[in-house]
């Protein structure tokens, strides 16, 4: 492990690490003296390096020519992204020479870059803006006409290209070559006439296409979904875990008082690296108010629907449950957190003395699929967590038992913890039909589903909070437990499954300390939790590129 000096500070880096990795983290850095204490934030060498084309998740292109550093004994400036640290190397990137090179490098980037910022979605999180503020020349001398290229090019179903804004860092091209391996993009023509593009009928259309928008340091690639909907400075953000499938990608959700607007991936070496799939980026949609149940709804014996507050609705339903004795069943989808399962299953087992708890499997056929990169066939974020809780309480049931129970009348009342991502529940209508055989159906549901109106007999629909509105833990396909915090509240009166379970069991709502779930103790010591995993905001806070 070579030892080098970066801006006067001695550091030890991993073998084969490049200078830019040593300076920006990127998995190559280790502190020099004491061994690292667990939980301690890894220190990076000081000094920012301007750069565009280097991305820790992609190969080195070395074309933006901004990350120059001075190496002692070498008269020429060297690019930090392609220079491997050797023993005793003395690196400096604070000298005037380096600063001048970055200044002019940025000016070269900008001479043909249009002044589109007012209508550019990237404005506010743009690499050019941020880095020019930090390293720029501030007296542009370009007085000639700019090169005209194509604007608003439709690259595919998800992405729009603006060639004039493109700085040809080739990140997106490398992404389609190396990560998605779909090879849709290319750089055509040469010199300053070069343009990114697709060829004719082969559009940029893959399951990871929106990552190109994330890694684009400028506004050349913009997402059709997010385009023009908000200026980024109106958005707040918070980290959470994607609930789109059992991969459990770490994501950052962007929202403001009008609702959620987009989701971007957050680096986590163990789970998703730097990427996430396009499907997962759509999941913010059902969270928004217009798609949610805001009030509890009740219908007695197929009559008209009443509306009431969610808590009142749950209390109302509690009475029915009490009267059903042990003919009560609970149906759980893999969409809730471990803590919630723990609480509601505990309530059922202890209060109702019922072990009629059933797992609603929405994708029995594709359960074990994997596309080789991120997407898992199991479209629930927490199936593993649900199984663990059920196992702990000794519940062993199958769906056919529920169907039998409904048929022979041994199950009269059913509590259903309904799904959040309706798009992954193609069997929703079927299951509603099956469950409508029960006398009393208490359906806990977050997004609206018109099919629930089909339920006959006595029905309670109780609004639930979605995954961004609560703290909790998901256990992904690999058994990795990921804790996440509440992002924001969209429907404040909605209930969590814990609260609903308590109310249904006839308890009052109490503010309880967080449950110490079973998995806490079982976690291997070296497991990195979401909250203290290594932070690399590289892509998603572009200002700090």
């Amino acid at each position, binding site marked *: 492990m070579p030892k080098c000096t970066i801006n006067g500070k001695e550091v030890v880096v991993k073998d084969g690490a490049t200078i830019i990795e040593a300076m920006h983290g990127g998995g190559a850095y280790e502190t020099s003296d004491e061994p690292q204490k667990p939980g301690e934030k890894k220190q990076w060498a000081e000094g920012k390096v301007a750069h565009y084309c280097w991305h820790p998740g992609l190969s080195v292109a070395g074309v933006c020519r901004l990350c120059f550093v001075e190496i002692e004994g070498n008269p020429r400036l060297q690019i930090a992204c392609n220079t491997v640290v050797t023993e005793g190397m003395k690196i400096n990137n604070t000298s005037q020479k380096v600063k001048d090179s970055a200044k002019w490098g940025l000016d070269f980037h900008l001479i043909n870059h*249009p*002044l589109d*910022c007012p209508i550019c979605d990237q*404005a506010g999180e743009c690499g050019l803006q941020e880095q020019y503020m930090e390293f720029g020349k501030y007296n542009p001398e370009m007085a000639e*006409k700019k*090169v005209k290229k194509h604007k608003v090019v439709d690259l595919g179903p998800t992405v729009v290209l603006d060639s004039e804004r493109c700085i040809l860092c080739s990140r997106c091209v490398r992404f389609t070559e190396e990560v998605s391996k779909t090879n849709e993009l290319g750089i055509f023509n040469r010199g300053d006439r070069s343009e990114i593009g697709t060829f004719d009928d082969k559009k940029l259309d893959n399951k990871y296409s929106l990552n190109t928008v994330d890694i684009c340091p400028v506004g050349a690639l913009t997402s059709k979904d997010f385009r023009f909907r908000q*200026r980024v400075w109106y958005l707040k953000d918070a980290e959470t875990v994607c609930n789109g499938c059992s991969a459990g990608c770490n994501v950052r959700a962007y929202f403001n008082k009008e609702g959620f607007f987009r989701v971007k991936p957050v680096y986590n070496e163990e789970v998703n690296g730097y990427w996430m799939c396009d499907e997962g980026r759509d999941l913010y949609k059902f969270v928004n108010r217009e798609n949610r149940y805001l009030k509890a709804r009740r219908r007695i014996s197929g009559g008209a629907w009443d509306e009431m507050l969610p808590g009142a609705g749950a209390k109302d339903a509690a009475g029915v449950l009490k009267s059903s004795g042990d003919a009560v069943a609970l149906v759980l989808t893999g969409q809730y957190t471990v803590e919630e399962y723990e609480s509601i299953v505990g309530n059922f087992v202890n209060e109702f003395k019922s072990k009629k708890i059933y797992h609603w499997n929405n994708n029995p056929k594709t359960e074990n699929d994997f596309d080789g990169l991120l997407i898992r066939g199991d479209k629930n974020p927490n199936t593993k967590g649900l199984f663990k809780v059920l196992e702990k309480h000794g519940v062993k049931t199958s769906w056919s038992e529920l169907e039998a129970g409904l048929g022979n009348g041994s199950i009269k009342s059913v509590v259903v913890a309904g799904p959040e991502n309706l798009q992954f529940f193609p069997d929703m209508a079927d299951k509603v039909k099956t469950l409508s055989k029960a006398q009393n159906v208490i359906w806990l549901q977050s997004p609206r589903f018109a099919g629930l109106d089909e339920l006959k007999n006595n029905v309670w629909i109780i609004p639930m909070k979605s995954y961004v509105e609560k703290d909790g833990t998901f256990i992904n396909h690999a058994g990795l437990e990921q804790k996440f915090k509440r992002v924001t509240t969209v429907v404040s009166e909605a209930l969590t499954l814990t609260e609903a379970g308590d109310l249904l069991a006839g308890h009052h709502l109490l503010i309880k300390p967080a449950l110490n779930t079973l998995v806490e103790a079982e976690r291997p010591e070296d497991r990195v939790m979401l909250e203290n995993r290594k932070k690399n905001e590289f892509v998603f806070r572009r200002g700090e590129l």
Partner: protein
Amino acid sequence: MSVVQKNTSETTKWFLPGILVGLGITFKHLAKNLLNQKKMMTLNYPEQKYEYSPRFKGNHILTVKKDGSLRCTACMLCATNCPAECITIVASEHEDPSVEKYPIKYEIDMLRCVFCGFCEEACPVDAVRMGPEWQTPGVNGANFNYGIEQLAYRPQLKGGMMSLVDDEERHKYGI
């Protein structure tokens, strides 16, 4: 907080002299105005209106292009800059790729507006201006929420006001 001492001297207890002095001034102006009506300070509003300087910063105008469409690109800089938070913009994608982005909704709440002119300053395309008009009548609160129709195409503007900035020239030079 400043404290104003009440004048408690004897003479102030007699109000009549003061009133008379005041009335004297009133009658003096009355006489002056009657004799020389041209120099009269007051106006017969609303029949007569005061002519402000053309640079007066009054009600907002959204300027238009040659073809009569809005210049505004919905960049939201005015809304971001507005200290009274009275501007609401909803952007959308335009069919014409050379326009790209335009506002489908642009509302200024005139009752919240403090007429500071920051929106004008912030605008990168000279799309919002503060015009010389200052009358803002309305019978209820909703009347003061000016939309695009009111801001750009109100009758006084005679089909919209054009900016002096020439887009074609700018485009030719790649701006």
